[in-house]
């Protein structure tokens, strides 16, 4: 019985997004209550439902209806919109507030309020499953309750879950994929890699328009399986700035072209004016696209729409193979462990399996976040669930979540729809996991997390709450006292957070939190700046401490992984032994550098330090040279280059340089 219950409950983590189906439904036919002041209509419905094998009741009084919802375990409530004293919509809203955890499917009825907008609003406010316009045939009402007897027929569609299940579907048409994207409302910036991957793998063409919380519009253009343009409202990555930064053009060369307006694009004009070579232009354009694309992956919510249209296939472009590296770097360096753990809670009891694009020779399996874990691919495709894998602790937690997410983004790994029956002890673990995630968080943050766990938009607090309660099941069906305690703690917190979310105080707290966060961020920024100065002065231990403190408050500090690696390499070179400071940890830091930061001279400089620490003097020399080329004022890079050249006794040898660097330097105008 217990296993049966858990198995059913966990359906709601499933990909078909089922609404809650309590165990009582399995023991007896669903109970139906008609709340209708026209008794003849109500009795006709009761008679029809009874003939069809349901337990049906009717009432004309609000207090009686409320009492029956509890005592009769009502599953379906048919409510007339026009009731004496209170509208049916207001009554259902009050029921939802009073019994937020009650599994109750509401069907609204009206012969007067039949305007489409009213019906939509009423359905939204009451979360009704249907609206029956009077007069309606009895078979219409029967269809609604009978449909629920078929598995999955009455499932609730949650677009974000549908998105992540796309690669699990054997046959899914382009139209269906487009429809899933169209149905998405607000998503998280960390969901964008999946959408990019999906659009590329599906070879769809069109413009993905993205609007950030601040109202800024950006966009990605796709053509036949490749990204061909990335547009963000950002001054730093304007072509002129990048050309100067990369040394292809001097500011004074650019000036005449900026001051004169022309319908022609800047690049075209510069090439035409022999200020820039087409090759150098392509290098910079490609860098611009990469940096801009990475900047769209933000830790904040965004709204999107996809305009399907023909888009010219132009160069440079990012195809499926090139996107692989981006996906890897975003997962490794941008997407946080906290986000991933919350994201995968909803699929915890589902099995992982090789996806349709899986092959042993797929280059994704060779990427560091996967290949750094021995036997990872074998384990992850051995039929275990996400929770079983995570709980086995066979792999470091962060690496595990990042690796499965990376493979899922590429469609190499899928989460099977079928549920695994979960034992009580595993359910306890699951509840403990949620409890840990909630720990130390305020109501605002807990509600935010509930929305992410359930994949329901924060704008629908009632739906977030009821879906969440369905996910954690009911106390009475739990055996272990610690599971009961965890469940109670979680549900209390969830209730408080839900009430808070509805109260209107949410916005107020959000503002207060933003203020506090700003203060903490400013402090972190200042510690971070201090750390940079310490690094310049070769005070590596101090720098490391400051960076760690700053990043604990502000994980998104620009280039923090690079500076962290620099501090560690400094300590290693000085022979200072410190826990957590090793070449392996430096390697992990460098893997996690955000892609846009890899175009920085500092990254080349630290790569040089790393190469030298591993004995690769030639690699070190190349990296230091690159850093100096990118930023001629970088004295530390010049110093380390001289030191490395001295160590290797190497001479400037054109044969040992990268062709790309060589060509770039040839075209570079920087002195």
């Amino acid at each position: 019985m217990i296993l049966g219950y858990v198995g059913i409950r966990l359906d709601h983590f499933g990909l078909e997004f089922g609404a809650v189906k309590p165990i009582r439904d399995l023991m007896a036919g669903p109970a139906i209550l008609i709340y209708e002041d026209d008794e003849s209509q109500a009795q006709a419905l009761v008679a029809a439902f009874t003939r069809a094998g349901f337990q049906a009741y009717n009432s004309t009084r609000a207090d009686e209806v409320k009492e029956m919802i509890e005592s009769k375990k009502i599953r379906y409530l048919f409510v007339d919109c026009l009731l004496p004293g209170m509208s049916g919509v207001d009554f259902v809203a009050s029921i939802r507030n009073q019994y937020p955890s009650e599994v109750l499917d509401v069907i609204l009825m009206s012969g007067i309020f039949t305007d489409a907008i009213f019906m939509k609003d009423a359905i939204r406010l009451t979360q009704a499953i249907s609206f029956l316009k009077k007069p309606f045939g009895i078979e219409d009402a029967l269809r609604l309750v009978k449909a629920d007897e078929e598995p999955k027929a009455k499932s609730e569609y949650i677009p974000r879950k549908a998105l992540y299940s796309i690669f699990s579907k054997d046959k899914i048409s382009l139209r269906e994929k487009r429809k899933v994207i169209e149905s998405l409302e607000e998503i998280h910036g960390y969901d964008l890699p999946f959408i990019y991957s999906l659009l590329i793998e599906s070879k769809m063409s069109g413009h993905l328009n993205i609007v950030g919380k601040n109202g800024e519009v950006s966009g990605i253009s796709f053509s036949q399986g490749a990204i061909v343009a990335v547009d963000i409202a950002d001054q730093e990555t304007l072509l002129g700035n990048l050309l100067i930064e990369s040394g292809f053009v001097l500011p004074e060369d650019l000036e005449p072209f900026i001051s004169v307006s022309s319908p022609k694009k800047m690049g075209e004009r510069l090439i035409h004016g022999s200020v820039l070579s087409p090759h150098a232009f392509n290098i910079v354009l490609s860098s611009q696209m990469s940096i801009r694309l990475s900047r769209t992956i933000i830790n904040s919510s965004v709204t999107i729409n996809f305009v399907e249209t023909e888009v010219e296939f132009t160069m440079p472009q990012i195809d499926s193979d090139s996107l692989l590296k981006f996906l890897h770097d975003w997962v490794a360096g941008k997407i946080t462990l906290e986000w991933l753990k919350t994201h995968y809670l909803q699929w915890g009891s589902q099995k992982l399996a090789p996806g349709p694009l899986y092959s042993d020779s797929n280059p994704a399996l060779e990427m560091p976040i996967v290949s750094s874990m021995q036997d990872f691919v074998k384990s992850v495709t051995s039929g275990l669930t996400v929770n079983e894998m995570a709980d086995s602790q066979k792999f470091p937690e962060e690496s595990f979540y990042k690796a499965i997410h990376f493979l899922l983004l590429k469609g190499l790994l899928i989460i099977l729809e079928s549920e695994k029956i979960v034992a009580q002890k595993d359910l306890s673990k699951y509840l403990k996991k949620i409890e840990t995630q909630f720990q130390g968080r305020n109501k605002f943050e807990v509600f935010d997390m509930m929305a992410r766990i359930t994949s329901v938009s924060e704008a629908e607090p009632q739906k977030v709450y009821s879906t969440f309660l369905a996910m954690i099941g009911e106390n009475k069906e739990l055996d272990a006292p610690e599971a009961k305690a965890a469940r109670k703690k979680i549900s209390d917190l969830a209730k408080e957070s839900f009430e808070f979310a509805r109260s209107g105080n949410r916005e107020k707290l959000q503002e207060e939190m933003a203020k506090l966060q700003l203060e903490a961020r400013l402090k972190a920024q200042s510690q971070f700046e201090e750390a940079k100065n310490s690094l310049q002065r070769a005070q590596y231990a101090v720098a490391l401490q400051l960076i760690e403190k700053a990043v604990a408050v502000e994980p998104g500090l620009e280039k923090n992984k690079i500076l962290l690696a620099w501090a560690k390499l400094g300590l290693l070179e000085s022979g200072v032994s410190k826990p957590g400071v090793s070449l392996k940890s430096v390697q992990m830091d460098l893997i996690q550098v955000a892609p846009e930061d890899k175009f920085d001279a500092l990254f080349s400089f630290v790569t040089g330090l790393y190469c030298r620490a591993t004995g690769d003097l030639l690699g070190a020399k190349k990296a230091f040279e690159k850093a100096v080329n990118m930023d001629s004022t970088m004295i530390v890079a010049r110093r380390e280059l001289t030191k490395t050249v001295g160590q290797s006794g190497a001479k400037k040898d054109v044969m040992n340089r990268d062709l790309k660097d060589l060509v770039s330097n040839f075209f570079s105008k920087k002195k």
Partner: protein
Amino acid sequence: MGKFDIKIDKVGDLSKIQITGVIDEDVDFSQHKISGSGKLELDLGGVKSINSCGIREWIKWLGDAGQAPVTYLNCPKIIIDQVNMVKGFLPAQGKVASFYVPYYSESSGTEENVLFVHGKEFTDNGVNPPAEVKDKEGNVMEMDVVEDKYFRFLKKA
């Protein structure tokens, strides 16, 4: 005709603007002055696509209209999507007079856009969809949008 075309007819203080093609970074709206117009009526039925650069240019351009009433006619889905998602895409003093709603026939797999006109298929209070839309083979077609999302702009009106 290029990939973008715009025609402006001035009738008294009313500027009737017809736009067709692609609205993107190559469109130079600054050549088409709308400041000083008493009223603007934009027929967008021929707009084929719009990207983020186009959206930004559009908002900037319509900002020149000042407080002049703006009416959008024959909006395709791609325009309604932007109206719903991007603040300022339909100016505060703007109204949608007609727009297309996609329908789909499961039986024949065909898609069709049905024009909803203010006062007929929709009003300021809501939508009154046609009782039935059929494809060429006579199969009943379903509305092919997420209604809560697609008709959201009507609630803002």
